[in-house]
């Protein structure tokens, strides 16, 4: 009950924030929500099903590029492009999953397989004609006024509420998933794959669901990225840096928990922005300082709070045993 109230208060705070926040604060809040959304999507695969993907930028990048290219080349609305984007990313996830899981590529080897596919695609997209190559793909912006959800064009506030809705949606979806048969299959596979198989769980199918769901949801995040920022570069969209930034929030917040990605994003983004702001205010350009801080945060978490902040905080608050389905 307490957790449900806390969550409602959080959502209400985010929903009312535009009344008080200026454009800068709003952009920071959007970063928080994006990080939480993508982190939750990744959490399905690693946190729930125990499959370490370090190439999640692949799905986000594919989603972004497919929807953006359809819009730029053929004028197809973003909302329709989203469907194609999700389809392509799910197909990519299915290929990687099928290759990895069928041939018994496990653990670190599987993580390397995901990196290999992401890097392969990055270089590939630098050489596909018509997508801008390394120079980038740019989406034309007609006007920043109004709300056009079909074409995904409009006021920044539209994008703010869109990502808020997506983040709430993915939270509710994950909650449902964890309570479902599939969710219990995932936890069983995560804890002990052989035992899960011995119980009659179709391990391959459970893992395929995880990678395909995670890929599709990540692609939707990528489409959001493309239409909000209007610029795409292969090195960023498919890069290792993007993959790492996706995994930061759930790991810091708490792997496999529902609140973890949100909490991690709420901790990391404002601190990172403060560092950027602080160094700029002091008048020196310290590129890399924010990432250095992220590295140190990650190191601190993995050394001292390996389960993440949320499980620790929940114990401190005495909310253990409270129903929210988070493992």
């Amino acid at each position: 009950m307490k957790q449900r109230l806390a969550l409602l208060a959080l959502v209400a705070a985010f929903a009312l924030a535009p009344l008080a926040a200026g454009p800068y604060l709003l952009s920071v809040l959007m970063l928080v929500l994006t990080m939480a959304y993508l982190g939750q999507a990744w959490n399905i695969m690693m946190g729930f099903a125990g499959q370490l993907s370090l190439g999640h930028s692949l799905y986000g990048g594919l989603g972004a590029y497919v929807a953006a290219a359809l819009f730029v080349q053929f004028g197809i609305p973003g909302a329709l492009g989203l469907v194609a984007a999700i389809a392509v990313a799910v197909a990519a996830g299915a290929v990687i999953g099928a290759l990895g899981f069928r041939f018994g590529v496990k653990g670190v080897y599987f993580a390397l397989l995901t990196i290999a596919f992401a890097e392969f695609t990055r270089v590939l997209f630098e050489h596909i004609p018509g997508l801008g190559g390394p120079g980038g793909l740019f989406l034309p912006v007609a006007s920043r006024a109004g709300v056009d959800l079909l074409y995904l064009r409009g006021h920044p506030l539209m994008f703010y509420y869109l990502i808020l809705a997506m983040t709430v949606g993915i939270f509710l979806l994950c909650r449902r998933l964890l309570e479902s048969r599939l969710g219990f299959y995932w936890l069983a596979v995560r804890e002990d794959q052989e035992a899960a198989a011995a119980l009659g769980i179709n391990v391959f199918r459970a893992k395929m669901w995880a990678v395909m769901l995670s890929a599709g949801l990540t692609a939707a995040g990528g489409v959001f990225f493309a239409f909000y920022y209007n610029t795409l570069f292969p090195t960023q969209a498919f890069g290792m840096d993007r993959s790492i930034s996706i995994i930061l929030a759930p790991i810091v917040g708490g792997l496999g928990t529902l609140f973890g990605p949100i909490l991690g994003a709420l901790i990391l983004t404002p601190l990172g922005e403060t560092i950027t702001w602080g160094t700029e205010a002091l008048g020196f350009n310290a590129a890399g300082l924010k990432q250095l801080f992220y590295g140190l945060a990650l190191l601190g978490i993995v050394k001292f709070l390996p389960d993440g902040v949320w499980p620790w905080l929940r114990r401190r608050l005495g909310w253990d045993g409270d129903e929210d389905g988070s493992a």
Partner: protein
Amino acid sequence: MSVDLVNQIITGLLTGLVYSLLALGLSVIFGVVRVVNFAHGEMTALAMYGAWALSTYLDLDPLVGMPVVVVVMFAAGYLLQRGLVDSFVGKPEHMQFILMVSLAIIMVNSSLLGFGPDAHGIQVSYGFDTYEVGPLLIDKVRLLAAGASLAISLMLMAFFRLTLMGKAIRACADNLVGAKVIGLDVKRLYAVTFGIGTACVGAAGALLSMLIDVMPPTGPELTLLAFIIVIVGGLGSMTGALLGGMLIGVSEVLAGYFLMPSMKSMFSFAILILVLVLRPQGLLGAKR
């Protein structure tokens, strides 16, 4: 085959030998400590910055500066294992992975803060010398770097086969419980092994600094390169690392020769995907 192509293949083989030494370090650490060093390339980049600093400020040729870099990197690796990595031995793989990723992020961005985003390269006085062998042209720098790499790799193999400490380390890798039973100081041997791995990184980094420029993104690129080589050759297999390095070195130049140099890493990743799927234990690796 045209002479130009043969020249290219020789270039690839020689560069590949330096890659081999780099990958050997990764393979040794994984084979014994069972920790995947995902900061391998970042460590290499730091060694390259070290060689660059020695060459720029003290006017030391990278071949002369190499021992200094090697000793420093050995000490750093030893201390890193003792102080931090050791508590992660035996922990779940993803936690070790995240530990090393966090170290990698710290190293990349420290080098960005310390050295800036620009490329740092070393130009030695004999940088443009070549040997003519019949119709073939061989770069002197590349030949020296490859020769040094091969010599160090062979010395390392001899160390593990012939010396008592090398045998003790191999015992830890083969049978950890047995090694503890006969009273080996496993923690110390692990630290020495990690140090040997980072010493390889130091040597390879100093040699690579003569061949390629270093900038912050070089680290992650080399990490992936080292992983590709080690997995293609067989994780834990020393001869596999040697073979894999030369294979990837040649595939890089062939990709550049027949297609575009910017597509070379795509080829390496394609080879990695094929090996992971068809022969996950690597070309020379034992069955997992």
